[in-house]
């Protein structure tokens, strides 16, 4: 019983410290403890979601870039989503990757963003959706859309490098294609 109490007190203390998002100890613990057992409870704060993040991508076929296409995961119907809302999981997954990517504080000439797990995963997700065998390169972007006062606003949040796609495969190479890195902040 004593051990149980000590464990719970320690767990709660680390959880409380983690809310401050500060301290080397909690940061180290977060890296070691899996499955979100050290929670961060902020719920739409301090920056509430006021725009939808959309993942768009395009392919280069026969030397020409095709139109941008959007990764469509759908949104739950308001009639059923109060009970069952699977789209929340898939949309949140993309939002998690996007937020992680945009948190990467890399300058325009700094290519470390390209090595981040969120960047590579987003690139893999759009590469998996390639439907054209002859595609030679792929590029993705993140667009934020909002609709306030009946006015739809679109803002470009990030543009990836263009990545060559291996022959006969939908996998990409790490080397960028002809276009350079373009960040939009």
């Amino acid at each position: 019983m004593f051990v149980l109490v000590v464990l719970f007190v320690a767990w709660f203390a680390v959880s409380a410290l983690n809310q401050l998002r500060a301290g080397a100890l909690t940061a180290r613990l977060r890296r070691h403890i899996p499955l979100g057992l050290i929670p961060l409870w902020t719920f739409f704060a301090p920056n509430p979601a006021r725009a939808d993040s959309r993942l768009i991508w395009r392919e280069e076929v026969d030397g020409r870039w095709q139109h941008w296409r959007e990764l469509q995961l759908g949104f739950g119907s308001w009639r059923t989503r109060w009970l069952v809302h699977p789209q929340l999981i898939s949309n949140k997954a993309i939002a998690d990757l996007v937020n992680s990517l945009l948190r990467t504080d890399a300058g325009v000439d700094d290519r470390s963003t390209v090595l981040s797990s969120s960047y590579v995963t987003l690139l893999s997700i759009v590469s998996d959706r390639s439907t054209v065998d002859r595609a030679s390169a792929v590029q993705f972007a993140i667009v934020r859309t909002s609709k306030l006062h009946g006015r739809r606003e679109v803002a470009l949040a990030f543009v990836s490098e263009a990545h060559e796609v291996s022959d006969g495969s939908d996998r990409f190479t790490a080397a960028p294609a002809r276009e350079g890195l373009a960040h939009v902040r």
Partner: protein
Amino acid sequence: MFAEPALLVSRLIFIGLLIEAVEVVALRATFADGGIFSRANLALLTTGTRRQMRILAESGATTSVVAAMVIQVFAALVVIVDGVGSAAGVTAALCCLGTSGYVRSRRQIGGSGAEQLTFIALVVFAMVMIAGGSRHARQVGDAFLAAQVTLAYVAAGVAKVASPVWRSGTAMTGILSTEGYGLPGIADLLIAHPLLDRLACWSVIVWEVTFPLALVAPRAMLVAYLATGITFHVSCAVMMGLNRFVWAFCGCYPAVWASAMLLR
């Protein structure tokens, strides 16, 4: 919730686990090759993380995930019917811990605070059982969950107070204007009546920040805080589609109640 397993409200988080299973099964194709939760994507996502963070992240595709969720459905049903006071209920709850943990690891991203609290509750239950599962151990588990729920509300409230958007009373309009969390009719109503938005923002802030009072205030006030919480989470489910927060947070209210009674 663990100390009084016979209470029906002590089983609410398992309704959330039932819904989680249905949702994951609906998304089963996303776990296959080429899906956003494919093993290849999970391998990329967890590259460079520590070994314990990657356990099961790349294990199993659609069939394994669906099988885990089918087990979770049956296990959650056993707890909903039988509670966590019997051997069958305890086994079923521990089964839910296994299946829920597997899917959390297998997915890594796309989780919510509701999922996180539910998983923490399941881990706490397992620890209570390892400690013998006595009434005292269950009360300690309840106290920890009550503390986590209180911390969750206070941290969220303080984060909102620190936010100029929340303080200005425009946060709800912004959130409800999105496609992901929005409801156009309500957003339009808040745009037409900004005072309503300000009232909603500050009501949430005040309720969250002062939630610890529920643990020590007179019983009527405790009832009022929890009733407000139920209204808040049901509203979030209806307006924003945050469906599982109802079952996760309200499911921990019996622990808040039991702990508040102990403090009296």
